[in-house]
C-alpha cells in the first residue's frame, strides 16, 4: 500500500533522512521507533507532503505521490494524526467531526444549516463521537478535553474523513495511563476495520501489542525492520538508545 524508496530529506544542509526504504502492505500495522531527533516525525511529514524529499520515491496505493500536494494525498486516503494534537481546539467536537465528514472525498456539502444533508451529517458526526464515548461533549469546545480525549477525537476524525492509511505520531503522548487503554482500543478497532497503520512510539513493549512489524530508525536511516520479538532482542537496539561505550564490553 505504501512504499518508500531511497528517500532523502535535508534541511539547511543537514541530512535528516538518508536513503529510507521500506514497504507497508494493506492491513499491516507497523511501529516506528528510534531515539529523539532521528527523523521519525520528518518521515511522517514527508509522507504527508509537508516536507519535500530531495530524492527518492513515494508510492501510495500504486500511485506515485511524490509530487502531490498534501491535501490531495489526504484525499486519496492518507490520514495523519499529529503529535501535538491536530484537532481544532477553538471549535466544538461536533464541528471537528463535521469538517472531516464534509472533507471526505465525494461528500456532498450542505448549503443551508437546516437542510436534510446537514442534519444527516450531524447525525453521522454524533454517531462517530458516540463510539468513542464523547457524544455528551459534542457541543463543547475541543479545548476542554483531556489529552486522551483529544487523541480519541483526532483518530475518530481521521476515520470519518475516510482514511485508509493512518500515520499515528506518538498517539499516547500527553495521554494519561487510564486513557491509554482507550487509545489502544481504538487502534485495535482500526485494525479490525482493515486499516493500514504506521505508529511512531517510544515504548516498544507498548507497540508490541499490536504491531506485526517494527522499524528502527537512527540518524535518518533504517537500521532494523523485523518482527517485534527479534527487534527487541537485537543488540543494536541497546547501542542506539544507550550508546556503546568503546572501552567496556557490554
Amino acid at each position: 500500500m505504501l512504499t518508500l524508496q531511497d528517500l532523502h530529506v535535508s534541511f539547511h544542509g543537514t541530512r535528516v533522512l538518508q536513503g529510507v526504504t521500506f514497504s507497508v502492505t494493506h492491513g499491516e500495522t507497523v511501529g516506528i521507533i528510534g531515539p529523539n531527533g532521528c527523523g521519525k516525525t520528518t518521515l511522517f511529514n514527508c509522507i504527508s507532503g509537508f516536507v519535500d524529499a530531495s530524492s527518492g520515491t513515494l508510492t501510495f496505493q500504486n500511485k506515485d505521490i511524490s509530487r502531490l500536494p498534501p491535501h490531495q494525498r489526504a484525499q486519496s486516503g492518507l490520514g495523519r494524526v499529529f503529535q501535538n494534537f491536530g484537532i481544532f481546539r477553538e471549535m466544538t467536537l461536533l464541528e471537528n467531526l463535521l469538517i472531516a465528514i464534509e472533507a471526505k472525498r465525494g461528500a456532498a456539502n450542505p448549503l443551508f444549516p437546516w437542510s436534510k444533508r446537514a442534519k444527516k451529517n450531524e447525525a453521522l458526526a454524533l454517531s462517530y463521537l458516540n463510539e468513542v464515548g464523547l457524544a455528551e461533549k459534542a457541543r463543547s469546545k475541543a479545548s476542554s478535553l483531556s489529552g486522551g480525549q483529544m487523541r480519541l477525537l483526532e483518530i475518530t476524525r481521521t476515520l470519518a474523513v475516510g482514511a485508509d492509511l493512518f500515520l499515528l505520531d506518538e498517539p499516547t503522548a500527553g495521554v494519561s495511563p487510564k486513557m491509554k487503554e482507550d487509545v489502544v482500543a481504538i487502534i485495535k478497532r482500526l485494525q479490525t476495520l482493515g486499516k493500514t497503520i504506521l505508529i511512531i512510539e517510544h515504548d516498544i513493549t507498548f507497540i508490541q501489542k499490536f504491531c506485526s512489524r517494527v522499524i528502527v530508525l537512527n540518524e535518518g536511516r533504517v537500521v532494523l525492520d523485523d518482527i517485534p520479538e527479534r527487534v527487541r532482542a537485537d543488540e543494536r537496539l541497546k547501542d542506539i538508545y544507550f550508546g556503546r561505550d568503546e572501552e567496556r564490553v557490554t
Partner: protein
Amino acid sequence: MSLLFEAITSEYTIHLCVLCGLYLILAQSLNLTFGLGQLFNLAHVASYAVGAYTTALLATEAESPFWVCVTASVLTSGVFALLLGAIALRLSNDYFAIGTLAFSSVVSSLLINWRSVTHGVLGIPGIPRPDLLGADLYQNSHFLALMSIFVVVTQVLFYLLYSSPFGRALRGLAEYEQAALALGRDTRLIRNFAFFFSSAGAGLAGSLFAYYLSYIDPSSFSLGEMVFILTIVIVGRPGSYWGVIAATIFLVLLPEPLRFLQIDSAYLGPARQLIHATLLFSVVWWKRRVLFPQQRQV
C-alpha cells in the same frame, strides 16, 4: 412625542442608518478574512474603493443601469481580491499585513494620480441615483429602504457562509493549517475564496456608497477608514457574527453625541478618530490574551 417621531424620521437619522448599513456590509465582509481566516488584510478599503469607482465610472460615463453597476462593482472587487491574494497569500503573518498595506497604498496612489481615469483628487461627481421601477430614490428614505434590502441579504449570505462547510474549513485552517490539509482541504483555494467573497462584499458597499453620496474622491478610502473598519471587527470580536453587527452600530453611533455639543466642526473628525482609537486600544488591551492566537503547526 411628535418631536421624537420627527427626530427618528429626520434626514439625520436616515443618514446614520445608511452609514450603519454600509459599515455592516464592510465589517462583516472583513470579518470573513480577518475574523474567521485570521488574515490581517489591510487592503479591504482598497476593495471598497474599487467597487465605488467602478460604479461611479459606469454610472456617469457609460450611463449604465443600476444592476449592471452593482454587479460590475461586486465582480471587479472580487477579481481584484484574487490579484491581491496571488501576491499576499504567499506571505506570512507580519509580512502579510505589510504586504496588504503596501498593495492598498499602491491603489491609493493610483486613485490620486491616474487622473485620466479617476480624475485624481477632484473625484467623480454627478453620480445619479438609481432609476428603479419608478421609485424616487433621490429621497433618502427611499434609498435607505433599497439599501436595507442589500444589507439584510448580505448579512444572511455571510451567516450562511460562516456556518457552512466552507466556514468551518476556513476556521480550521486558520488555527492549524497542516491539520486541515491532512483532512484533504485545499487551503490555498479556500483562502482565495475567502478573499473573493470578502472583497466582493466591500465592492457592493462601495457601489452603494457611490450612489448615496453622488460623488466620490480618494479621501473616503484612506488608511484612517481602513483602521475604522478594522476597529469595528476587533471590538466586536474577530470571527463573531453578532459581535461585529453590534460593534458596527455601537461604533457608528458612539461619537454622534459630539455633534450636539458646541464644538467647532473642525474638531469633529479628529475627535471621532480619537474616540475610536482609544476604544480599539482598550479592547485590544482587555482581550490581549485571546485576540490573536498563535497559529499551530507541526
